[in-house]
């Protein structure tokens, strides 16, 4: 007989007398208690499930809120604010804050003004301290997240050895904290942090949820980034990376609004000369590379002076405010950057300028004026070279630097050499001085003959034109890298000690010594030569004039050296 038939086969109820009423009551009570206990347990199970459901639903709602904000927000900052508020509402924590990562090679967390603060007064010290603190990787709560790329939790920040804001947190009564990263394919781009008034153990479930929120926010940040990239592309030239014509027009319009007679804006248009030939000789790829190099040089040259743009083709533009510099200075500086020179080619730039608002109050008008002036200058340049020695040929000569260049000494060069010796200049200084001395008038090649040979005095405009020859001389010499120092001497060879010279109105020691030597020797040689309007002076008369102008026009020590040189020569000649 199996246990089954034994147990189930017979009636359960014990045979014999019915239970007493007391026994019956005891059993009923017992049954009631069992039922009550079962009900309690069922209620408890249900409560646990309800609670879990509630939490799951709350988490989903938070995620949905952040996801919706991430999809609909027009800027990442908006979505970030929704997330900070949402997490505070979800956790009941009173303080939430966002950081953005800046810097590619050495990232650092920069505080934003995106906050959730339940009580602005209570947490003011903490807010101020946070907004004044940047975090390097590993430092403080957000720095940990930046370093690891994962969530972080601090049970009590006031006891944490790596929490620089502990004092401010204690003042606001903040203890527990967590933070999580906003990630774009593994890269931390932002960090959100939250604080509670009580110490709390890490909540794994909560941190999992926060990691999801970080991923959601990453999407909106990524979209923001893509949009910024598109905006950048719309306003920049992909080849050189310079802002393009559209950016120029926008900047010029903006500059026009802020410009005044006292605060002028300079518009410069540059057009490369020799670029077409370069392209034809070396191909478009080489031409593109040249444009990129020139753009880079132009950017460097304009640092702190103005902004470069590429208009397309071989045209560049520069916008500069004339706070500290003369228009010529900026223009020449940029022109000197747009030069490249090598075996069989020379690329230079012609420019035209316009002043805003004195010459024009509209952007199109300003560009038109600059364009016209640029072409006018180009044609002057080519006329002058047709009539005289072609600058191209000269540059070719300079580029190949014939050994004769330094040896071909005219009278000025010879005087300069002797004065340099008297002044005990170092050999390194003497070589560029002699190069500059022999070529100091080369810029006059670009001055029209009508002005150069005009019998009477020059009018203001002609004089201004004349004054440019030092700048042109500098540009020509700059084309040969070996003549860079000589070029600087040529530029300053018509400066005066008292600041009344040209083109930079330099004073005293600001004028390179080489230029001061050339200036004295050149003047002496000029006075000793016959001129259309006067005969040559005697040596004595010329020296007297030099001494007379020492200290105002000329460097007294150079004048003194020249006098000594001449005295020795006369002595030798007499002897």
């Amino acid at each position: 007989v199996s246990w089954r038939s034994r147990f189930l086969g017979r009636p359960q109820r014990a045979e014999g007398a019915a239970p007493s009423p007391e026994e019956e009551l005891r059993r009923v009570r017992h049954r009631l208690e069992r039922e009550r206990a079962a009900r309690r347990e069922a209620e408890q199970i249900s409560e646990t499930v309800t609670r879990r459901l509630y939490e799951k639903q709350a988490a989903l709602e938070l995620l949905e809120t952040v996801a919706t904000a991430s999809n609909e927000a027009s800027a990442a900052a908006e979505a970030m604010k929704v997330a900070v508020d949402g997490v505070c509402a979800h956790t009941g924590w009173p303080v939430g804050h966002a950081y953005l990562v800046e810097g590619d090679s050495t990232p650092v967390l920069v505080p934003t003004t995106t906050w959730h603060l339940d009580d602005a007064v209570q947490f003011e010290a903490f807010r101020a301290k946070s907004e004044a603190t940047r975090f390097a990787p590993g430092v403080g709560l957000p720095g940990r997240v930046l370093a690891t790329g994962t969530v972080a939790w601090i049970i009590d920040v006031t006891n944490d050895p790596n929490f620089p804001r502990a004092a401010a947190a204690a003042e606001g009564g903040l203890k527990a904290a967590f933070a999580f990263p906003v990630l774009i394919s593994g890269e931390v781009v932002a960090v959100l942090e939250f604080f509670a008034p009580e110490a709390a153990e890490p909540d794994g479930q909560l941190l999992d949820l926060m990691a999801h929120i970080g991923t959601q926010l990453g999407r909106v940040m990524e979209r923001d980034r893509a949009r910024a990239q598109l905006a950048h592309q719309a306003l920049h030239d992909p080849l050189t990376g310079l802002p393009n014509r559209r950016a120029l027009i926008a900047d010029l319009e903006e500059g026009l609004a802020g410009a005044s007679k006292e605060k002028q804006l300079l518009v410069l248009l540059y057009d490369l000369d020799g670029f077409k030939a370069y392209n034809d000789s070396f191909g478009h790829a080489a031409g593109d590379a040249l444009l990129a190099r020139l753009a880079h040089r132009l950017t460097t040259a304009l640092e702190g002076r103005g902004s470069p743009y590429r208009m397309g083709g071989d045209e560049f533009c520069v916008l500069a405010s004339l706070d500290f510099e003369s228009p010529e200075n900026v223009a020449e500086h940029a022109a000197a950057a747009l030069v490249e020179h090598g075996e069989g080619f020379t690329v230079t730039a012609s420019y035209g300028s316009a002043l805003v608002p004195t010459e024009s109050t509209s952007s199109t008008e300003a560009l038109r004026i600059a364009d016209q002036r640029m072409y006018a200058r180009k044609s002057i340049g080519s006329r002058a070279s047709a009539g005289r020695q072609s600058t191209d040929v000269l540059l070719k000569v300079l580029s190949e630097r014939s050994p004769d260049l330094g040896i071909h000494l005219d009278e000025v060069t010879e005087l300069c050499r002797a004065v340099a010796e008297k002044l005990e200049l170092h050999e390194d200084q003497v070589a560029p001085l002699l190069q500059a001395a022999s070529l100091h008038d080369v810029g006059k090649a670009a001055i029209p003959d009508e002005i150069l040979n005009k019998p009477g005095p020059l009018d203001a405009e002609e004089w201004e034109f004349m004054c440019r020859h030092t700048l042109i001389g500098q540009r020509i010499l700059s084309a040969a890298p070996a003549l860079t120092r000589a070029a600087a001497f040529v530029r300053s060879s018509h400066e005066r000690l008292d600041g009344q010279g040209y083109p930079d109105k330099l004073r005293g020691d600001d004028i390179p010594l080489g230029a001061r030597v050339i200036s004295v020797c050149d003047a002496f040689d000029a006075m000793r030569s016959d001129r259309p309007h006067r005969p040559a002076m005697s040596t004595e008369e010329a020296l007297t004039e030099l001494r007379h102008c020492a200290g105002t026009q000329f460097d007294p020590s150079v004048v003194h050296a020249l006098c000594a040189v001449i005295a020795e020569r006369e002595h030798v000649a007499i002897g």
Partner: protein
Amino acid sequence: MKGIVFNLLEETVSHDYGEDVWDQLLEAAQLDGAYTSLGSYSDEDLMRLVAAASSALNTPPDEIVRWFGRSALPLFADRYPQFFEPHTSTRSFVLTLNQVIHPEVRKLYPGADVPVFDFDTSSEEVLVMGYASPRKMCAFAEGLIQGAASHYGEQAVIEQPQCMVRGDEKCVLEISFSR
């Protein structure tokens, strides 16, 4: 009203007066008395039970409700120790009602219509607590606070300069604790 309140009322009445009294109250109030903590029941049910108890014990309804609050508190402490353990004084416990306890109640019983209190903690000696609810059950709050005081080994003296039962806009409880 949440079922848990009826469950606790049954427990306290049965404990202090016996199960028969609970049966009699249900009969007098003409209620079947099947309450589970998971359900929600009409506020009216509770009012009828209180009225029945009031006439059976010849005691004012407020007094009944106050007694209920005082007696129910140990049962709360038994069921939900996690809310009581972090505190050593009644004042700090009471101050967590809005932020901690009632939010938790909402998690367990979705749709629970819990009251919101406002606190004035500017005085160290007297905690001022505002209460406004259509149920006008300030006496229940008083009883619970007194029960909580006993839990923490304190006495609570509660004055009510304003009371909805007396026609004021809201109830104001001025509570001072002593050991």
